[in-house]
């Protein structure tokens, strides 16, 4: 049987303004609202709206034969609610076709799993209800921030009611096995681990526009052929939705590629599945055993992109040290402000890696350097801490 499952993740952080020392104590809004709106407008026009139109057109033409998965962060959903309800509406329309499965994640696209399990649980539930609110379904499959994954995560998600969890199909844990099967974490009962096919995913995301690649140009036909001929139950292709129109501009032909891909796959007699379809249809092949957290980020595929240096460690430690005070305050605004500071991007901007990983950071970061980012972040946190103290004194 030849199956494919397409996953797209979507996320935008609330980038901070250059929050300087003089703002501590009286300016309690840390985000660059204008900049964030600009980013949202740009990505909506370059990616979300044209992609949604293409996906809708494909659904209309192929009907039940075309399906895919979306994982949208709570911070992005909020940004759309506030600034671009039209874009949110186009996602809602996609969901109404019944051909889209929504994948769970932490509401604030955070690193809560690594820092506070109660907070992790709170955010998973919050995200579930947000997805229910807009799209009328509750996620059954989960994807953690940065594809951070380990055995323990799978077990905890099982307890939270999930049927499946996505993970990076890292070769050192596959040990020669194919990622195109369902796996399971040791000591779990029901939850399945779905592995991203890293090679085929990266062939598109990283090599599509590379003219020096010997397979250039990559046509939808060629790509469909590769998928059809890859051994296993189901090929899981996973990428950011923003790949289209942002990482790969319209000029590269990425939109045409995704427009034609479903037809080429049909020609090759490849079926489309959602994550939940796959869990129902396929049998677990073997155990996928990952003791320590891994991710899909940077060369190391570990946690170093977010917590590799002392600035990141200090920022994270300080942030989560405020958890108890913030949550106990029962002040919704304070909890929300603290939670938004948990978004992984804030820590990612502070990494001091060089070479290719450094270039990727500089491309994504709104700051001129990780050091400036650290200064703004710590200043904002200092203000939040003062607010916390004031709350405690009042109580």
């Amino acid at each position: 049987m030849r199956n494919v499952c397409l996953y797209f993740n979507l996320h935008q952080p609330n980038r901070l303004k250059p929050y300087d020392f003089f703002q501590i104590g009286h300016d309690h809004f840390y985000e660059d609202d204008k900049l964030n709106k600009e980013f949202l407008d740009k990505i909506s026009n370059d990616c979300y709206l044209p992609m949604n139109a293409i996906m809708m057109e494909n659904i209309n033409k192929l009907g039940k034969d075309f399906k895919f998965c979306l994982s949208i962060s709570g911070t992005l959903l909020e940004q759309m609610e506030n600034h671009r309800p039209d874009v949110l509406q186009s996602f809602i329309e996609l969901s109404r076709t019944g051909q889209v499965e929504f994948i769970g994640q932490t509401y604030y696209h955070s690193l809560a799993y690594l820092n506070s399990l109660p907070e992790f649980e709170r955010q998973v539930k919050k995200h579930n209800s947000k997805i229910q609110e807009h799209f009328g379904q509750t996620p059954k499959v989960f994807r953690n921030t940065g594809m951070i994954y380990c055995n323990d995560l799978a077990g905890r998600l099982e307890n939270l009611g999930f049927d499946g969890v996505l993970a990076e199909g890292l070769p050192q844990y596959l040990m020669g096995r194919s990622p195109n099967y369902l796996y399971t974490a040791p000591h779990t009962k029901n939850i399945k681990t779905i592995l991203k096919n890293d090679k085929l995913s990266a062939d598109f995301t990283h090599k599509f526009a590379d003219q020096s690649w010997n397979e250039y140009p990559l046509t939808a036909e060629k790509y469909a052929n590769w998928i059809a001929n890859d051994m296993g139950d189901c090929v899981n292709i996973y990428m950011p939705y923003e790949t289209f129109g942002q990482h790969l501009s319209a000029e590269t032909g990425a939109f045409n590629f995704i427009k034609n891909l479903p037809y080429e796959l049909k020609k090759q007699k490849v079926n489309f599945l959602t994550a939940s379809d796959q869990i129902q249809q396929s049998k677990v092949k073997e155990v996928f055993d990952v003791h320590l957290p891994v991710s899909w980020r940077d060369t190391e595929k570990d946690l170093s992109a977010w917590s590799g240096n002392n600035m990141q460690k200090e920022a994270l430690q300080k942030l989560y040290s405020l958890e108890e005070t913030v949550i106990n305050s029962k002040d919704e605004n304070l909890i929300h402000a603290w939670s938004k500071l948990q978004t992984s991007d804030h820590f990612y901007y502070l990494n001091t890696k060089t070479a290719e990983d450094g270039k990727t950071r500089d491309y994504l970061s709104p700051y001129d350097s990780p050091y400036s980012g650290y200064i703004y972040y710590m200043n904002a946190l200092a203000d939040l801490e003062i607010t916390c103290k004031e709350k405690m004194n009042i109580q």
Partner: protein
Amino acid sequence: MKKLKVLKLGWEFPPLISGGLAIACFGIAKALAKQTDLTIILPKASQSSILDNANIIGLNNTDVKINNSVNHSHEKIYKKYNAFARTLFASGMENVSPYPSLEKTITEGTSSKSTEFNTSIHSSKFSESTTISTFFSRFELDEMYGDNVQQKVVEYAEYVAALAANLEFDVIHAHDWMTMLAGIKVKHQSGKPLVIHAHALSYDRAGPDARGWNYDLEKYGMSIADAVIPVSRYTGSIVEKHYGINPQKIFPVHNGVEPVKTFREKATFPEKLVLFLGRITGQKGPEFFLEVASKVIAENDNVRFVMAGSGDQLKRIIETGAYQKVGNKFHFTGFLNREKVNKLLSMADVYCMPSVSEPFGLSAAEAAQFGIPCVISKQSGAAEVMQHALTADFWDIELMAKHITDLLENEMLRKKVVEETFEDIKTCTWEHAVEGIMGAYSYALGYDVKANPPSEKGTSQPIFSSSFEKKITPNFENIQKDDLKKIQGIESKVESLLNLGGVFSYSDLAYTKYSKLKSVLLEAGNNFQAIDPSTWAEQAELAAAGKWKTLEKLQKELNRGKDD
């Protein structure tokens, strides 16, 4: 009364300010212009660099062509300059800006340029038609230093020398290494004494082991200078001990401290605020501030530390701070404009200056004016002036942390330190500084410029130290000479030595300090070293006044003493 003509060579000057140098040069110029006939040559001056009673020449808006014949003589000088550029550029030395911006931080490992000095000179050799304005118009504030600063220093010297050939002056006053080459060249060309004002030395910027072009230029410049004015006794001791300069010609003069408009503002956070303000570079001791901070925070949670400014060490310090887990109480501001600096001063509770080597430290004096108690390192000029500030060695983290904790917790102490330090700096005026500068001029010229308005012959006489290769033979023809041999102890050989040193008349001799006379004799070699000139000034005074009988009587007494 004829005014002393001073030729001042500056680099930074308002409105072009990148640090304390511009402020100091302006303060000195303003006060000096009241007493002297002042001409200032700057690489770049603008319409707003106007000063009453002073003639300011900006090379960026002065058209002076360097013609062929001058160019030929330059060839020779280039070779000579190479003598103090034997060393290749040391690592990091090519970026010698005392005020590097955070953005231009030197990337370690890429700085091992081994360009030899002469290469950069020849590449910079201007064509016949190059005018000053085309070269210097390129100067923006951040271009005053930067990668090709040495080229700029050399070209500045060329143009200054060309300009100075047509100027009248009695003494050359050069500020820091950027203008030293020009000062040397003009002294060379005119035979006029050179006074070097040392605001910051490569010792301060790069540490005691710094060698290379900068150090060589400073050492050479100060050794041939006729007087050196360090901005503190602390810097004077470095000039003497580290550069091996004759202490007799070192005249420490503290900078003036302009009264600043101060105000107090309440911080928007409940904690007390301890402030570090300045370039974040090794010289300022930022890592010591960080250590002090983590010590104080461990004892007293009700305090925040702010490190304001930027510099090549900022990134490292940020990471170290994060490592020490003081990030939530330790803040960085990056570069701040004047308005923000004042705002910070208005909020601060303690000012801390842990400089490793600080020639003066104007910022501490400003903080004191804002009513902030200061904790400053002993390795600073400010500690000499602000005698009631709390001091510690820059490395003495314990004591510095104790001082800060005491000031935060003991209101009586805080008040005492604030009030008394405020009184201390009241005496620091530019007028007072100029008194000291005049003293250095007097030493360099060999007569008291205040007490005795220079006579015709006295004013224009070059003073050569015998170790300095004379390129221009002074013209002695029109000078009225007295027979100095009438002074007991002066023989004809000694007389010609004195003439070479600019001493021709009895009154010249009367106003030449003992130390100056002794150094002329010492430099002349073994035959003259035993000669004691201690009575010459007294004798010359009588001779100048025509009191020959009294002189004769004195000489007899002197002889008798000798015979006994």
